[in-house]
């Protein structure tokens, strides 16, 4: 696994690499499932799989530039699949920042433990929604509430799903 990680300064945290095409396929699958799943299971709309994929690859790759670029691409794709009432850039800005934050934090902390993943995902989910509300309020002049019980529940559900999804995505790592 020597070619699969790199030691950064004093932190001694692995930088994981993935099988060829894994990031692209996982991203596309997340977007398609996100769009197709709620048609049959309306409660599944509470999940934000593209966000979970952004967080996972940000935390694993630990390269802020890669993280923010991946976040931008995923966000813009999600914008364009969300219909014309969602302007291009709404999810894009939020996921760019989350990708940057996830990879920056991933470079400083060990984020392999399920408890750490749960807490980080919940925090990133809330931050993502906060960025969306900020964008809507400041740039689009659309009043949105900052907090709701639904947001709290959604953060917990997404964090719970993330623990298992991340274990699944761990299998895509190059050995």
């Amino acid at each position, binding site marked *: 696994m020597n070619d699969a990680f790199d030691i950064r300064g004093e932190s001694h945290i692995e930088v994981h690499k993935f099988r060829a095409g894994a990031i692209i396929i996982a991203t*596309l699958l997340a*977007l*398609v*499932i*996100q*769009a*197709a*799943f*709620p*048609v*049959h*299971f*309306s409660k599944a*709309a*509470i999940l*934000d799989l*593209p966000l979970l994929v952004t967080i996972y690859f940000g935390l694993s790759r630990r*390269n*802020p*530039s890669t993280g*923010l*670029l991946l976040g*931008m691409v995923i966000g*813009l*794709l*999600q*914008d*364009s*699949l*969300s*219909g*014309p*009432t*969602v*302007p*291009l*850039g*709404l*999810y*894009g*800005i939020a996921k*760019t*920042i989350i990708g*940057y934050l996830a990879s*920056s934090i991933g470079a400083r902390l060990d984020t392999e433990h399920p408890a750490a993943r749960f807490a980080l995902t919940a925090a990133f989910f809330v931050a993502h929604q906060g960025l*969306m509300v900020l*964008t809507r309020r400041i*740039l*689009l002049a659309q009043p949105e509430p900052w907090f709701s019980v639904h947001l709290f529940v959604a953060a917990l559900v997404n964090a719970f799903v993330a623990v298992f999804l991340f274990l699944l995505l761990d299998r895509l790592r190059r050995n």
Partner: protein
Amino acid sequence: MVAIPSRHKSLVLLAGIIVLQVLLLAVQIKRESKGRLIRVWTVGAASPFERAGSYGFGWVRDLWRHYFALQNTTKENEQIRHENDALKLQITQLQGKAAEADRLAALLNFRQSHAGVPMIAARVIGASAGAASQTIQLDRGERDGIRKNMGVITPDGVVGKVVESYPNAAQVLLLTDKESGVGAMLADSRTQSPVGGQGEPLLVMKYVPNDDTVSLGERVITSGMDRIFPRDLPVGTVAEIKSGNPFKQIRIKPAANLERLEEVLVLLSLRPLEMKNEENTGDAQPHAPGAGNPPPVAKR
């Protein structure tokens, strides 16, 4: 040239990308452009996978509902059930097909009872990719004559309107979306007021004066004033009434089950329509099928 320290490069990149996206947002607002070209590419690339995913999920769901979910209900029959697994699997598939046939028959009956109104049935193959909007994606588009601003209904009631049409797919803004609205009126008092969404399961009727009498359970129907939907289509029923200043706060339960849409009808006209059914044959003549329609030819 000022050299940027390597540790700051990603921060500069982040700032640059955020600024670019803010500019992108600003351009869309200023020009009222919605980035159609990017959306056409993305939806065109994603819709075949969504279509396949939709059929796959439907199959798995039917299998789960009719087979696995019932497996523990009667333990005493477990042995017999094992022996009949293959047969039940076949029954499951047939039940799924029968349910689909029922839904399609309802659509066909509705279609036949409104033969003067040009409409086309479409299958729902996707939903909004995020919680920021309430949209669905249909498996038919410009090639089938579907255009922006056409109304979408089910036999139960109004669903929404087409907000984007691509060659092989179309996006529909559901009534529950915050930006959605339909011209409506109370069926008993005939009080007219638009009904819109709030991003929640219930709709709101905004401009009914406090003096007007509204009762719980009262039907809300289309008024035809929005020039998208014909008159007298069911919108929903009054579920909650609160007095406000100066208008009542009325919440409406949608007539169509917007959380479980599988097939819908798209009204293939951009001109005001009159619904004509068996009970109402003496009314105005319907427009000829396809009147006012753009030809169903793909534009590339």
